[in-house]
Structures are given as C-alpha cells and as structure tokens.
C-alpha cells in the first residue's frame, strides 16, 4: 500500500483517506490555529481561523479534504496576520472583558490572541447588547462572549441528543438561542454533565460557582501556548478516529 502524502510548510505529512487537512496536521504534530473546530465533532467551518493556502488558494483546513501532493502553507507571516485580524474581529463583535471573565486563562479565543501576538483589537468596538441567561440553577449562558462556533449546538444535538441550542439570525444579528418555550435555560433538560456544557471554547457557557477556582499561574494557558495544549489534547483523538476508519 502506498502511503498518502501532502506537505505543510515543506514538511512531508502522511494522511489516511478521508482525513481533512487539519486532521492530518494534528496527527503529525503540526498545529493549525482553530476555534470552531474540535476533532470530536463534525467540522463547522465558520471561524476561518484555520485558513491555510492549498496549492496557492485559501481554504479552511478543518473542512478541506487532504489529497495527495497538496502543497499547504500554514505557519507563514501572511496567514498569521490574517488570522490575527480574524481574531481581532471576533473580539470587537462581542463583549470581551477578560479581567472579569471566569474563563480567562483557560479561554481558547484569548489563547489564540496570545499565540498570534495580538496586542489590541485594531477596529472600533461594537459593544453589542446581548442577553445573559442566568435562569438555570447550575449552568450559565453569557452571550457577550459567544463566538457562534456551534460547538454547543453540535454537542447537544449529536452527543447529548437534547438539541438545547441553535443559532438564529443573520450577520451581526446572529445569536445563540435556547430551545424551550420561554427561551430560557431553566426550562430545558440541560444538565451539568452534558457534553454541551463542556465544549465552549470561550466563557459563554459556564458551570456556576466554579469561577476563578484555579489561581492565576496554574491556568491552562499560563504556562503553555495553545499550540502545545491543542496538540497534546487532540492528537490522541485524531489517532483514535484514524484507527476506526
């Protein structure tokens, strides 16, 4: 059997039939920045942070299938600058006040900002008004910090089988809705053990009374950058899926 191969930044990367570029990269220990992608779920392809150049064209690495002989550019100054701009836009579209956010230090959006050396948000801020849902006893939804990645939607639908969340509206009016007659979390059957409660990459879905439990200095991204953390966590998941193919 001949091995399938592509290159990323000149490095030869093997892949198996059916893998996306990001899966092949992760399995080979190459980090491609991403936010809406999580190897446990079907790709969504919305944040565009994983943009790479495939044979000269911009593609989302989380949705684009790996193919023999592809020449992929990933860790280039140009792509990282584009990714930084995307990250800045994510910041100005929501309300991200990291010093008062329980997710700070454990947040993937923030960690991507650090990874890309984002020092400011460049654009004027939108300061949108977004609704906080604190109705549930144990789970809290702060839409100010939602980046519309649909990971909670996918987790609730595909893993928990509950369909608690969905996205509604278009463009700047897109927002996360809760499927209950009142639109409130308290009237759903969500519970703290649900996958949906644990996949949010930012501080939009939180378990109550857990905030600031881990001291500064010991949080996930205090010592390691998101490239290292992400590979450590995602490599085994991708490898397992590969064996399952």
């Amino acid at each position, binding site marked *: 059997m001949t091995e399938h191969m592509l290159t990323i930044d000149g490095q030869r990367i093997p892949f198996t039939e059916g893998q996306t570029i990001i899966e092949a990269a992760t399995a080979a220990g190459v980090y491609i920045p991403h936010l809406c992608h999580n190897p446990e779920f079907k790709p969504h392809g919305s944040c565009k942070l994983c943009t790479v150049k495939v044979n000269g064209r911009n593609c989302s690495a989380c949705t684009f299938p790996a193919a023999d002989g592809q020449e992929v550019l990933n860790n280039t100054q140009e792509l990282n600058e584009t990714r930084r701009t995307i990250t800045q836009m994510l910041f100005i579209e929501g309300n*991200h006040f990291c010093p*008062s956010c329980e997710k700070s230090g454990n947040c993937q959006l923030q960690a991507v*900002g*650090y990874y890309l050396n984002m020092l400011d948000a460049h654009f004027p*801020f939108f*300061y949108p008004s977004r609704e906080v849902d604190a109705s549930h006893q144990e789970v809290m939804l702060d839409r100010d910090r939602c980046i519309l990645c649909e990971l909670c939607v996918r987790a609730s639908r595909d893993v928990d089988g509950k369909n608690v969340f969905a996205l509604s509206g278009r463009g700047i009016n897109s927002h996360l809705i809760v499927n209950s007659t009142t639109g409130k979390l308290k009237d759903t059957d969500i519970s703290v053990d649900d996958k949906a409660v644990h996949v949010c990459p930012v501080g939009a879905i939180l378990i109550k009374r857990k905030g600031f439990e881990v001291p500064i200095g010991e949080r996930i991204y205090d010592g390691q950058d998101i490239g290292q953390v992400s590979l450590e966590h995602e490599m085994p998941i991708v490898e397992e899926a590969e064996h399952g193919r």
Partner: protein
Amino acid sequence: MAGKIKVATTSLAGCFGCHMSFLDIDERILALAEIAEFDRSPLTDIKHCSDQVDIGLVEGGLCNAENVHTLREFRESCKILVAVGACAINGGLPAMRNHIPLQECLEESYLDAVGVENPQIPNDVELPLLLNKVHPIHEVVKVDYFLPGCPPSADVFWKFLTDLASGAEPSLPYELVHYD
C-alpha cells in the same frame, strides 16, 4: 547624554493600577532615571505636557469630555503615544456600562442605590460631562503602541521602554502578553 527621554503619563478612565504596576519596576527606576525624565504625570504633578514629549503613556479609556481633551493634548505633545492596559485598549471594566443607558447608570448610583443620602444626580458646571459610552483611546487618536494587561506587568513596561531606548522596535514575547 545630550538630553533625557521625556516621558509623560496620565490616567483617564482608569484605576491607577497601571501606574502602580509601572512603579513595580522597583529599583530599575534608578536606571530609568539615568536616561529618562518624567514630564506631565501624576507622579510629578506637572499639569500639562511640554512641547516635545518623547513617550506618552496613557492609562484608561474615555468616559468623559475631559478624558478626550487630555488625550488630544497627549497626542499633540507626544511623539510616541502608547495605550497602556485593558481600559485604554478596549474600554475595560468601565465599558461594561455601555449597554446600560447613561441615565439609568446615574439613577442607580446617585438616586436608587442602597445607603444613598440626599439623593441627587451631581450637576455642577465644574464636572466634566460624561460620554454616552466609554471608548478605547484608539477610536479617537492614532495610537502607536499597545501594552495589554490588567494591568500590564512591570516587566512589560520595562521591556517596552528599554526596547525603545535602545532603538529597537518594541515587541512583547509570548509570556508578557496577557489580557487580564
């Protein structure tokens, strides 16, 4: 040395935490004093910038008309203007009032809050008028550099100023970049 680098600092809608963090450079301030002198700053109590300031460090965002005025003076006087800390960069915690109408904020603080005596909304002509929303400084003037953090650590100030003093393009390594 021909002349020392002139550094001005100010706190707009900030808490002075960034200034306190700056002073955490501790004894390194002696080395700094060899090459730099403070111009307008709460540390010197000089009230206005001199004509040619080299570096202006601005803590805090814009919450009232006086903040905007001070910021414009800084921009006019300083060759290099630096947004220091979360509030200058994104409005910070004061900007959390942005989705509450100003009137409601004032009523909550001065009329309805627990323990308020003689409730009235302050309305003296001496008081700077509040802006409808709190804004980061880059929305009003051109900003040359940004030092994130709430506050940026003393090492951030030190790295930035020593880079500039040595003629290098200032940069912050991964471990000095924080938004909290």
